[in-house]
């Protein structure tokens, strides 16, 4: 059976630096899959290649068996792969509700002539209902009228996910969704992710918070210096000597 998402020998070179080096892993439908590794391991670069932000130097990204590597980001999104960004990337000048409305672009594609003559009432109502549903799910219903730039850091991360969720994705790529959240918010957010997963949305998660990763993931891929290091369930990864070495080695590097 083909996996929902599979990367095959994925490679990204920036000049002389090989940020991701012949990486392989599979993400099964309906699971939460973790992608971990020390700083600079190449996790964000991997996300960028899967989501179409970068064209890989080599290798394939297979979505339900179809190679999507090198497609523009909006084409990848239209196939059901929606990402969030590592740094709170939002429409800071727009309101929270407007942010979520942009997220409904795919299910409710705007039409110029309908918009001018007001024939798109149903679509507009549908989009707003979906946007509000996404905001409510992520606990942002009360701040819909505020500017996204004025939100607290935790709320901004939640809004980033609400924008992605509003588009009815099949798989979401979340890049460090828990940074800037306090332990309580993190716990709450973990609950929401489990709920998303049980609603049938597959999640690929990059995160440094090991407790969150271990608590959430069905499967974890660990990488270091762009290379595949280990894969397995939380218990396996936690006790994997190569993983421990990579993290400790990284720490020694910093010191």
């Amino acid at each position, binding site marked *: 059976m083909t996996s929902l998402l599979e990367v095959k020998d994925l490679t990204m070179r920036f000049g002389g630096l090989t940020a991701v080096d012949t990486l392989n892993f599979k993400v099964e439908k309906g699971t939460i899959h973790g992608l971990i590794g020390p700083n600079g391991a190449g996790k964000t670069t991997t996300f960028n290649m899967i989501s179409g932000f970068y064209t890989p130097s080599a290798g394939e990204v297979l979505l339900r068996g179809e190679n999507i590597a090198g497609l523009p980001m*909006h084409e990848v999104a239209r196939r059901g792969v929606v990402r969030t960004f590592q740094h709170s990337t939002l429409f800071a000048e*727009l309101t929270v509700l407007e942010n979520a409305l942009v997220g409904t672009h795919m299910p409710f594609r*705007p039409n110029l002539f309908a*918009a001018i003559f007001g024939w798109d009432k149903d679509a507009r109502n549908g989009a707003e209902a979906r946007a509000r549903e996404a905001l409510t799910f992520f606990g942002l219903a009360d701040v819909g009228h505020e500017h996204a730039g004025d939100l607290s850091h935790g709320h901004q991360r939640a809004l980033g996910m609400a924008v992605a969720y509003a588009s009815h994705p099949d798989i979401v790529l979340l890049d460090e969704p828990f940074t800037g959240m306090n332990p309580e918010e993190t716990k709450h957010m973990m609950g929401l992710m489990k709920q998303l997963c049980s609603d049938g949305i597959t999640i690929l998660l990059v995160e440094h918070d090991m407790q969150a990763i271990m608590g959430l993931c069905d499967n974890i891929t660990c990488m270091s210096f762009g290379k595949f290091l280990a894969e397995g369930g939380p218990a396996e990864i936690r006790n994997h000597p190569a993983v421990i070495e990579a993290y400790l080695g990284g720490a020694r590097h910093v010191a």
Partner: protein
Amino acid sequence: MRNIFIWTVIAAILFALPNLLSFSQQEVLVFLTINILVVASYRLLTLTGEWSLGHVVIMGVGAYASAMLTKSSGLYVPLGIVMGGVVAGLTALALSYPLFRMKGFYFLIGSFAAGEIIRLLWKRFREPFGGTKGIKGIDPMPDFSVGFYDFDFFEPTSYFYFSAIVVAICLWILWRIEKSPIGLTFQAVHWQDKLAQASGVNLRAYRTLAFVIASGFAGIAGALLAHYIGTINPNSFDVEVMVFVLTWAIVGGTSTFYGPILGCVVLTILNEVVLRELGLEQTRPLIYGLILILSILFMPNGLESIVQKFTRQKERRSLRPEEAK
């Protein structure tokens, strides 16, 4: 109900306005009406964050197209004006292929270069563009009657009514677009193109769409102008005019629909009342440059920010009684 009342009053004022003005002021009023469409259409493009220096030349494309079509094939002038918009929009579509390989500053320079190339073509080819002398004797709008009012296009007043109706329809369409999901997508493309694209927005398509719509309405404005003044040449659409458009937009502010229109109206009145009275007409570019710099320094959010200050105060005041409950 209240809105209908306000719009009726505005329409009545606009109807009465030419009768309070001298002949030359009536002519200025026609130009002002056309220029309002130029800045308002320009704003639609700026919604996506792109600033073009070719907008006035595209307006000229509409003027040339309508002038040539009505002259050569005897097309009915109002249809020629619509065709002016269509040709300008199609020109923008063709230009979008090279131009939207660029963004921001490079787009700005690219749009300027594209505009200059079009102007060179007008100058270079006496057939069919008339060379540097341009096109003379453009068909005027044919007179007609609507029962209670006889449009006599020898009179600026009649042309003002006609262009005001055309411009009002265009503004309504621009407004509907801006307030629609399309307008929201334009803004999304402006503020965070990465996130917009990750939400499935085809950036190139939306930038092109804004450019084509803005250009189409600029083309209509150009055609309105051509059939009023009767003669156009490449210098009618040179960069000096573009600087005026930029000044109106920046002085007015581009974060609201009415900002650029406000800038256009205020600066035109200033120009007519102050500069003409003082006999400083010739120094208009200089003074516009000065106003542009001063407003960037001291009023970075434009005239609209002053209006917003007042309307917000009013809102707050009207909110207070509710809070007291």
